[in-house]
């Protein structure tokens, strides 16, 4: 996605061959206020315009205290992806300290510091970007600090710095058997000049990078002491829960709260234009109070909306041309000349995030200050919306960020913060607003609905000589990061549909931005590829079938110029035992992708029962994500992403009827459970390429692998998600 590319471009500022320290990355060193060495850095953040910035505004800091403790302050959040472990590994590697010596602190929100005035200010963690963004600059920062510490020791001993070495948090002069700890050197190092060039370690010399490091945040998460946003308890906090207009865009007409007020523990009813909240001593009373309200809504313009209307509208939208996302050759001529033509339509549904921690936000609005306790991926925006709603200046909004009980894109939005501040404005004292699961699902911001049409032409050998793809769907980026939406093309939504790994000589892809009426859309794990890889990898499988070729052999024939793609495909196929016999009703399906900077191939083994029910039994995944920082995290992220994708492929669907979301909780919006989870094998191809993202690719890759496996098992091609088991049911 565009965000990745911007970030990657900035992270690679100067390129891997240029070791000259970028002044945009690291400008200042000096004495920390509490003593010791302080390095101030500018880490690339989202939406940072290309080109040199005039002012250096640091947003990340390394402090080396006289005690030897090393603290890294950075604007990335931990939401389960292991960032808080992987990032310190980069510093520790170059600084020559043990991983346990580095503590990572989350930077507070600061629009001036982290935001970009051109782009509305985005301080965000998302899009599998964190490691890619900091891979180069953080190692440079670590090496710089090490160089200065060595220089300080050499000066004190009056020896050549080259005769000293750094090891385990100390500088050693072997010839004279002298040793000084970093803590003892920190202040003197602060007075040393910043080196112009620093040498980074060669990959073969890495001690930490590439080894399976234990996560640093685990112990608190197994004994209940980890504090998530929903666990915030400022003194005197009340609990509120809310009902929002069940139809998007509806308004609150009237509320009879006489019975709700009689509920023990209920303190206050808060009315907003399109919502009502009950404030109480505890959530039990708040929920009981909410149930006792008699609410009348004005449903507004979308009162009759249904999913069928949306599907019809989107299919109709495909009749007209869209913005050209990528085009080469002459597709129409090649189609006319083709021996075989394949024309098909695909469709994918709205999806909810359903993070296990329901949406929540705790707010205390006072006359001169607003305090917020929340787990969020875009702190700068959270601060800005609170300032906007309260009318307070930005620096009077204090945001305490917390652990995130599942992000998946949902907490890249601030609608929940806005809503909570609106409620808190009417409440005297702090109030924790907690969404019920039903509100969370029915007022999510959804993975967009997409409709696709494909045409391909095959030559006499069955190989594709023409590929035409047109699709319609919401652009999240046009809302979230407007300057990134150019000439009708959303570079994030088209990701996975363009720049395919395959050799396709005549290739034409068009995107039609079409927003669903009233329904909010947002990033969802694996983002654009969550749709595009499903349709592209299903369609290439269809072409293989039309050519009567094996799906792996067919893909391989198109990969002469894509050695990394071919390597992951070969590895996955080999490990999966592709071609070996399977029981009746079971099939293998393959997928291949290059998104988020990583190459990935998956083989899914899927069983289709006589009643049409589908079970994913085994998934083999091969990944080339360039340099491996923490293989333990990579395996965990792939396992998790695959399971997230299976949930979507088998069960995931948000539908509307009479303008209302029909699903409400985990009984009707089902997600995978342990008894349905397959064996998942992850094989990593290690190399020294720049690191690719790992939070998302597993989700997009599994969906087509499942559909392709179902085709292999049954001969039935499913072009809609989720899987329709009725179609797969055997007669009799």
């Amino acid at each position, binding site marked *: 996605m565009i965000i990745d590319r911007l970030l990657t471009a900035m992270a690679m500022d100067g390129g891997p061959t240029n070791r000259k320290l970028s002044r945009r990355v690291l400008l200042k060193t000096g004495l920390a206020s509490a003593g010791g060495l302080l390095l101030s850095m500018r880490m690339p953040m989202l939406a940072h315009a290309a080109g040199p910035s005039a002012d250096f505004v640091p947003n990340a800091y390394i402090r080396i205290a006289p005690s030897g403790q090393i603290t890294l302050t950075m604007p990335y959040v931990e939401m389960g992806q292991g960032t808080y472990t992987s990032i310190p590994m980069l510093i520790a590697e170059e600084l020559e300290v043990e991983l346990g010596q580095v503590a990572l602190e989350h930077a507070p929100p600061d629009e001036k510091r982290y935001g970009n005035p051109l782009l509305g200010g985005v301080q965000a963690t998302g899009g599998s970007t964190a490691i890619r963004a900091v891979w180069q600059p953080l190692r440079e920062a670590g090496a710089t600090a090490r160089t200065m510490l060595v220089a300080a020791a050499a000066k004190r001993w009056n020896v050549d710095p080259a005769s000293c070495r750094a090891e385990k948090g100390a500088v050693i002069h072997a010839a004279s058997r002298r040793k000084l700890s970093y803590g003892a050197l920190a202040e003197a190092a602060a007075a040393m000049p910043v080196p112009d060039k620093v040498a980074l370690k060669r990959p073969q010399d890495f001690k930490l990078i590439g080894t399976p490091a234990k996560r640093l945040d685990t112990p608190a998460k*197994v004994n*209940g002491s980890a504090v*998530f946003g929903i666990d915030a308890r400022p003194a005197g906090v009340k*609990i509120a829960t809310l009902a929002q207009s069940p139809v998007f865009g509806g308004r609150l007409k009237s509320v009879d709260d006489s019975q709700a007020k009689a509920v023990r523990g209920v303190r206050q009813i808060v009315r907003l234009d399109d919502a009502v909240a009950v404030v109480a001593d505890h959530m*039990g009373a708040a929920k009981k109070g909410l149930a006792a309200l008699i609410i009348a809504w004005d449903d507004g313009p979308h009162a009759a909306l249904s999913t069928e209307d949306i599907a019809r509208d989107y299919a109709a939208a495909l009749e007209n041309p869209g913005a050209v996302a990528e085009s080469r050759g002459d597709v129409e001529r090649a189609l006319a000349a083709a021996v075989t033509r394949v024309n098909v339509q695909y469709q994918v549904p709205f999806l909810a995030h359903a993070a296990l921690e329901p949406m929540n936000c705790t707010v205390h609005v006072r006359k001169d200050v607003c305090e917020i306790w929340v787990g969020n991926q875009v702190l700068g925006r959270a601060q800005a919306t609170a300032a906007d709603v309260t009318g307070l200046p930005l620096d009077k909004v204090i945001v305490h960020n917390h*652990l995130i009980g599942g992000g998946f894109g949902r907490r890249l939005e601030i609608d929940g913060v806005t809503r909570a501040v609106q409620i808190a404005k009417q409440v005297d004292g702090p109030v924790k607003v907690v969404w019920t699961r039903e509100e969370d699902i029915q007022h999510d911001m959804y993975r967009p609905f997409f409709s696709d049409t494909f045409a391909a032409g095959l030559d006499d050998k069955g190989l594709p000589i023409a590929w035409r793809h047109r699709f319609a769907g919401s652009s999240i980026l046009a809302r979230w990061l407007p300057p990134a939406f150019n000439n009708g093309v959303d570079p994030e939504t088209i990701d996975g549909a363009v720049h395919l790994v395959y050799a396709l000589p005549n290739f034409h892809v068009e995107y039609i931005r079409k927003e669903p009426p009233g329904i909010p859309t947002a990033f969802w794990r694996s983002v654009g590829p969550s749709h595009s890889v499903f349709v592209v990898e299903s369609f290439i499988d269809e072409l293989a079938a039309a050519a009567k070729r094996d799906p792996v052999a067919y893909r391989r024939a198109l990969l002469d110029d894509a050695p990394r793609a071919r390597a992951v495909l070969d590895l996955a196929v080999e490990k999966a035992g592709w071609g070996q016999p399977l029981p009746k009703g079971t099939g293998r399906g393959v997928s291949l992708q290059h998104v988020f900077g990583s190459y990935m191939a998956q083989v899914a083994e899927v069983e289709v029962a006589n009643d049409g029910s589908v079970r994913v039994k085994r998934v083999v995944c091969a990944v080339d994500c360039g340099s491996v920082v923490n293989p333990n995290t990579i395996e965990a992220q792939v396992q*998790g992403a695959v399971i997230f994708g299976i949930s979507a492929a088998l069960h995931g669907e948000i539908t509307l009827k009479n303008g209302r979301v029909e699903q409400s909780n985990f009984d009707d919006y089902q997600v995978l459970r342990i008894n349905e989870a397959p064996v998942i094998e992850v094989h990593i191809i290690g190399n020294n390429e720049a690191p690719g993202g790992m939070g998302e690719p597993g989700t997009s890759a599994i969906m087509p692998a499942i559909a392709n496996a179902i085709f292999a098992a049954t001969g039935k091609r499913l072009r809609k998600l989720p899987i329709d088991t009725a179609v797969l049911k055997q007669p009799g």
Partner: protein
Amino acid sequence: VRCFVRSLQEFALAFNININGSPHSIDVDGDTPLLWVLRDVLGMTGTKFGCGIAQCGACTVHIDGAATRSCVTTIDSIGKSAVTTIEAIGHTSAGQKIQQAWLDREVVQCGYCQSGQIMSASALLAANPRPTDADINDAMAGNICRCGTYPRIRDAIKQAAATGTKQGARR
């Protein structure tokens, strides 16, 4: 006088329950789910809210050792039973083994569901020291993990069971 009557009523309505070995006097309506008493009244936030209808298992506690969804367990149904939460599960033998296995196997991602997972897993292990895959499915299918840590949950339960067997053999 009204104030006095009200406080007398509330006194009369208070529930005395035993949580992690300590008595607590709880002054809420009898139909209040235990989950909210733990989290909002007592401030024991290790037990999590996920769905409110016993579909996700995030709120799992033990009542007399049995894994129980606290979001649908009303306070008036507990009586003299012993409630154990994630905050104290490490004091039990099964709980300790499960927590250690969770650390060893690096199970956790976002961590939000893991209190409930650990409570279900330790109830399983206490009742069944050598669970099969099918036993694990039965005991753990009520606990959703949206991060998808299931493969490691399964491995960790097996590791904890193996630890138990070894220790048992030594004794």
